[in-house]
């Protein structure tokens, strides 16, 4: 097995040994050594919120304490911050010896960040799968399909759904939505001729994220075309046309119209 193939296999099947596994899509869940941490253990919502804030900002090398307090608390709440931080560390590392630094939340002066080297996060794994899939889409399409399938399987709903109305979570949520919209439609497009029904399912998943995503309607039309289901091609086009008119006041793109015209010409 060559190195690249090995890394694909690792990405697909390699069991990650991180003691902490975090799921942010659909429902926020944290596993410590394979066991789910119960809501009771977190005790305070702000503890969870601080962890979710650090996850949302994990690409930054560190966030100043003042900035964190400013985003999560209304008033100057140094004590509340310390309590929430202590809560995270206590839950993630219940056996940490006293007066030792946390392995998961790294403090650098007055800045804090989450240490990703020991933590597995669903969105990071999905992103790695999608990046690799995109890189090999033309050279190794079969492997690319497997990677995209693994990535889309991880999508179980929107990012941090319980923080929909918190502005600090919206940037990452939007980034994930665009990432998954692309993954669903790319995968659907790649398999539409061989597995049209699965392509329809994937396109519908994209439309659940954004009902105006025209590519998804077009792929569904192509899939119905492969199935020989002419009425559904027309119905899907009409639905697409209606949504675009309602939302934007525009018509479908010429490429979408041409799929319909091909059917009507037959």
């Amino acid at each position, binding site marked *: 097995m060559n190195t690249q193939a090995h890394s694909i296999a690792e990405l697909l099947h390699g069991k990650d040994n991180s003691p902490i596994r975090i799921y942010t899509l659909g429902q926020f869940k944290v596993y410590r050594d394979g066991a789910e941490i119960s809501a009771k253990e977190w005790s305070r919502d702000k503890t969870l919120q601080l962890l979710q804030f650090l996850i949302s900002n994990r690409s930054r090398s560190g966030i100043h304490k*003042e900035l964190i307090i*400013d985003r999560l608390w*209304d008033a100057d709440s140094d004590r509340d911050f310390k309590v929430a931080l202590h809560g995270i560390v206590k839950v993630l590392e219940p056996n940490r010896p006293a007066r030792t630094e946390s392995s998961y939340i790294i403090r650098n002066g007055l800045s804090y960040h989450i240490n990703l080297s020991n933590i597995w996060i669903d969105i990071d794994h999905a992103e790695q799968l999608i990046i690799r899939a995109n890189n090999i889409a033309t050279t190794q399409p079969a492997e690319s399909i497997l990677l995209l399938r693994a990535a889309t399987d991880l999508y179980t709903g929107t990012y941090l759904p319980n923080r*929909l*109305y*918190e*502005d600090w979570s*919206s*940037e990452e949520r*939007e980034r994930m939505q*665009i990432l998954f919209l692309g993954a669903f439609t790319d995968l659907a497009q790649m398999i539409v001729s061989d597995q049209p029904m699965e392509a329809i399912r994937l396109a519908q998943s994209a439309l659940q994220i*954004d009902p*105006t995503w*025209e590519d998804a309607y077009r792929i569904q039309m192509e899939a119905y075309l492969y199935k020989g289901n002419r009425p559904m091609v027309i119905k899907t086009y009409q639905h697409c046309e209606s949504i675009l008119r309602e*939302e*934007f*006041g*525009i018509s479908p*793109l*010429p*490429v979408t119209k041409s799929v319909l015209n091909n059917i009507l010409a037959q």
Partner: protein
Amino acid sequence: MATKSKQTASFMIRFNQNIYEEDGESQVQWRGKISHVQDGDAVSFADMNKAMDFIKEKLTIVTKNATDHKPDQEQEGLIDKSLDILKKVRSTGPKFLIDTLKDPKKQVTQIQDQIQDQISQVSHEISNKVEIDQWRAASKNDIKQVREEISTLTDLVLQLSKKMDALSK
């Protein structure tokens, strides 16, 4: 007084570009979606005015909620003042966008000149004798304002660079 979170309106705007051929001519179409984070409302738009109306509606609610205890006339005056920010954007924003799309190089040059002017001005001020006793420590608000201005400038330069890259391809 309303809490900070109640005085905040955050918006997420998504633009999706479609380039296509029609009647032998290349066309570019932008489709947008703007979401108001605090209540989850969202609208799709192909015309920026629809997005601006959405922002106006949400900002009006924020000001209205924060001034509910004031007499009607005073409240109306404050709402009107609070929307001044949009009037300015409406009058200058579209021109800036159109100018940028027409001539991105010129816009980048202008922004670079503005940055250079600011740097020169700061250099000039630093080179003069500084009356230290007139200084005050930067407040959190000052730092936030500077951070926001730098962030806005960075975003603008990045957007224009991307446009230039796209044009040069």
